[in-house]
């Protein structure tokens, strides 16, 4: 299986360096978040940071293995990998361990993993494989569009059944991939409008939104050259939006559980509940806000150290950066993260094989979604959805799965020169 002609020199070193930089920053943040003066030993494997260090080692090893595997392996085994991850998800549904309300964990001895993490690259591989197939044209073929949607929706639904809202939502990031492969831009835009409308529906009574939309439509029709078709579309859009807004309101009031309602209300600023549902966010904002311009210095953060921020080494890890390294540190961190995403985007675009490109876009989309939600949540501008910050958050299976996700792409990218050679 090991390809003798693989060229490690073609590996994108910039990405690799960025990866290790982020992983080490993550380790330091985990260390800082549970740091005690009485036990400063970073090698202590009974503490989170010690375990994270072990996981970095495991991830590096697996990453190396991936780099040594023939790139054709991933194309060939895309479906089996996808199948296995779906099976694992189903297995979890039946025999999973419940952690914090979501039964998404598989426990084998002391080893605990979340198959949803592996379903991400499984789905990415399957989607890439499917769309890169011979004579498959996403833009034109409705059947292709449906099957693509199916590939994404299948794991999504199982994960939703596991009560893992966060991971479920991650799969919506594939919309960027589909956009690149031919999904019309207006769908992306419509999706954005839908989100805005949904938020509005929760903030104000649907009646006002419908009145407002009707007025807007009337104004629109008054100023443009009216054709029958345009009138029809506009009226249809208003009716659809009205229906959606009303149904969101209905779902919110009658279907959702109280704690979900509270979370949403707190996020929207309708309820101020500093010590209840908004506690995490409030504490997170305090931790980040108290960092100031330059931060309190490494290991000097008081908010994090004394555990004011819940879930701090996992979901709220960005607080440590914000508090200890301040605005300047956060700026550098966000800059580097966006630079990594940019780099991956460039790499994806330079692929000659469709499979590689689609997979690359999937990697960028998944990482971007995690980044937006996770950091936005700590800043209090995104809902509290428990998903990790890739490469930074504490958690073995998350780190491993993101490493696999990224390194497969690095491996695929490393081969692009060979492809060139082969084809020419």
């Amino acid at each position, binding site marked *: 299986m090991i390809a003798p002609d693989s060229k490690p020199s073609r590996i994108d070193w910039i990405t690799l360096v960025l990866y290790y930089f982020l992983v080490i920053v993550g380790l330091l943040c985990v260390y800082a978040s549970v740091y005690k003066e009485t036990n400063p030993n970073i090698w202590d494997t009974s503490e989170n940071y010690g375990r994270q260090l072990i996981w970095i080692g495991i991830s590096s090893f697996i990453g190396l293995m991936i780099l040594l595997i023939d790139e054709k392996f991933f194309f060939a085994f895309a479906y089996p990998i996808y199948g296995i991850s779906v099976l694992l998800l189903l297995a979890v549904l039946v025999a999973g361990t419940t952690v914090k309300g979501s039964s998404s964990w598989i426990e084998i001895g002391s080893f605990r993993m979340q198959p949803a993490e592996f379903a991400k690259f499984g789905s990415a591989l399957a989607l890439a494989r499917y769309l890169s197939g011979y004579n498959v044209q996403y833009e034109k073929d409705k059947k292709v569009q449906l099957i693509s949607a199916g590939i994404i929706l299948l794991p999504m639904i199982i994960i939703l059944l596991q009560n893992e809202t966060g991971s479920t939502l991650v799969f919506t990031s594939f919309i960027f991939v589909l*956009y690149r492969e031919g999904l019309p831009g207006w769908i992306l835009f419509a999706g954005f409008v839908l989100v805005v409308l949904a938020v509005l529906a929760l903030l104000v009574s649907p009646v006002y939104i419908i009145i407002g939309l009707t007025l807007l439509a009337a104004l629109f029709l008054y100023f443009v050259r009216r054709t029958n078709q345009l009138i029809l579309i506009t009226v249809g859009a208003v009716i659809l939006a009205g229906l959606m807004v009303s149904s969101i309101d209905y779902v919110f009031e009658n279907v959702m559980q109280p704690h979900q309602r509270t979370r949403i209300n707190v996020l929207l600023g309708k309820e101020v509940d500093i010590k209840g549902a908004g506690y995490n966010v409030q504490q997170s904002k305090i931790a980040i*806000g108290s960092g100031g311009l330059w931060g309190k210095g490494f290991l000097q953060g008081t908010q994090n150290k004394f555990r004011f921020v819940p879930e701090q080494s996992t979901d709220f890890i960005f607080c440590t950066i914000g508090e200890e390294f301040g605005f300047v540190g956060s700026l550098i961190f966000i800059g580097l993260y966006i630079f990594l995403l940019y780099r991956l985007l460039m790499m994806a*675009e330079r692929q000659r094989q469709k499979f590689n490109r689609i997979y690359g876009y999937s990697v960028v989309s998944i990482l971007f979604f995690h980044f937006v939600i996770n950091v936005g949540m700590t800043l209090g501008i995104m809902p509290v959805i428990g998903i990790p910050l890739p490469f930074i958050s504490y958690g073995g299976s998350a780190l491993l799965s993101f490493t696999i996700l990224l390194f497969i792409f690095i491996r695929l990218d490393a081969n692009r020169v060979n492809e060139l050679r082969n084809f020419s």
Partner: protein
Amino acid sequence: MNSSVKQKTLLIIFISVAFIYIVRLFYLQVVDTSYVFFAQNNVLQEQTIYPARGLIYDRKGELLVYNDAIYDLSVIPDQVRNLDTTEFCKVLNISKEEFLSTFARLKRQKGYSKWKPIVFQRQITIPTYAAFQEKLFDFQGFFVEVRTDRKYKHSNAAHVMGYIGEVTDRDIEKSDGYYRMGDFMGISGVERIYEKELGGIKGTRYVLVDSKNRTQGRYKNGEFDTAAIAGKDIHLSIDQELQALGEALLQNKTGSVVAIEPRTGEVLALVSSPSYDPNLMVGRERGNRYMELLKDPSKPLFNRPISAPYPPGSIFKVIVGLMGQQEKVLFPNTSYGCNHGYLFVGCHPHGSPLALRGAIAVSCNAYFCQVYRSIVNNPRYKHVEDAYTEFYKHAYSFGMGHALGIDLFGEGQGVLKKATYFDKIYGRHRWQALTTISMGIGQGELGITPLQMANATAAIANRGYFYTPHIVKKINNRANPNPKYTTKNWTTIDTGYFPVVIEGMHDVIENGTARIAKIPGIEICGKTGTAQNPHGKDHSIFFAFAPKNNPKIAIAVVVENSGFGATWAAPIASLMMEQYLTGKHDTRKALLERMLNGNLTHRNDSARFKTK
């Protein structure tokens, strides 16, 4: 749409998100500084360290007041989480309704803040404290504060020591934020006047706490902590034994005793009867007991010796005798006849005519009416007002008509009228000695507190000066630093005029009106008074000092509505002087028994209910 446009679209989305986040971060971290404050509140807990209150001793070093630990259950409402109310109520032994109503009450309290500690239940018992301490971890947000309350070793001198209680909103305001709700401070007596000394200075400790309010350590190794400074100990000038005897002698009587050491102005005993046990004014029931005492018709809270003015009666004759000499209208050998009185002022039968010394000894009314007349109608002055003003000045110089400045709260001024007062009543120049003649024998427009009486006695004993009476002898084992208490106040009477009067006072004991007060081997000088009282029976009054040469004690006794000065006041003063000078008071058993058992309260019942 070609692929490069799509790539750019995604890139623009990435960069927009990054930009929004950076703007948001800039706002949180750089623009809005309030989070730094929040962070401090989260982590830094300011703990108050209460200093031990200063102890109070008597003049001989006997401990009178000490501290007792009490446990207050406090709560930071904001930190209460997942409270098992049923369990909590069980430990505290309260009902759920009480629990809820307490919380509701706290919320209504002025200055309530859910971030600040507030006392949930005061002074929980030690078993409750122990039970609570075990479960403290389950009751997040609650904690027990150890503080001290006062304990009194004896049930005496309640009016001297006063008591401590919770600060009021006004106290908090006045203290510029030093006191906080629930703090104790002196409310009356020495506890109040010497609050600064006794109270000490609260300390502050900054500790880092985690989100569960568990202490994680000192903030910057205690760099910003301030230690509590314990209150200073105080030695009263009170002699505990003398005080206790005084209170025993006045039991079941209404009245006062004030004893002063003339040499220093130190108050040796200050008895107010009826009184109360100072131990009633501590603990949880303080408020209720206070209300009970306040409603008691016998007014046990009233500090009679320093605030109640009495007509001095015959004891004032001594002062008049001194004034007459100073004004050169009276000489030791000046004699006046007495035919059972002077004009409308009657007199009891005694030998006549008498010179000054004899007149004091038998307390001749007519004699001192004559003297008063010659003072006020003194032809040396153009107007009677000018002559009366001299009289006023002399009386004032003995400490009458104004607060002396004792270190106790609520000192009265007594009554001493200026000439203008009579001008107002009778018209200018339209009154003279005879108009106010009863003042010559200590009646009429005169009111003197027992403290002022004792002080005047001390001035006579010192032959012309006194030190401002004071209760606190030493603070932190150093003499009371108030210069007021180490300055001689000279009376307007020259030293040379005193001996004859003092001889007269000595005769009062030896063969005059107060022979009952005689103590073998001690030369006592005194004067009885029987003050007419428009509200009921005469007040029995006596003042004295002893020994005649080198006086060690000056004393004034008032027993309300009990008759002649020699009946009650003189024996009580005599027993107390004996106690102070010899350390014994039981050499005259019958007299002691009679005084101790004398119950005068029933006689005043009718009067008391009338005034109520």
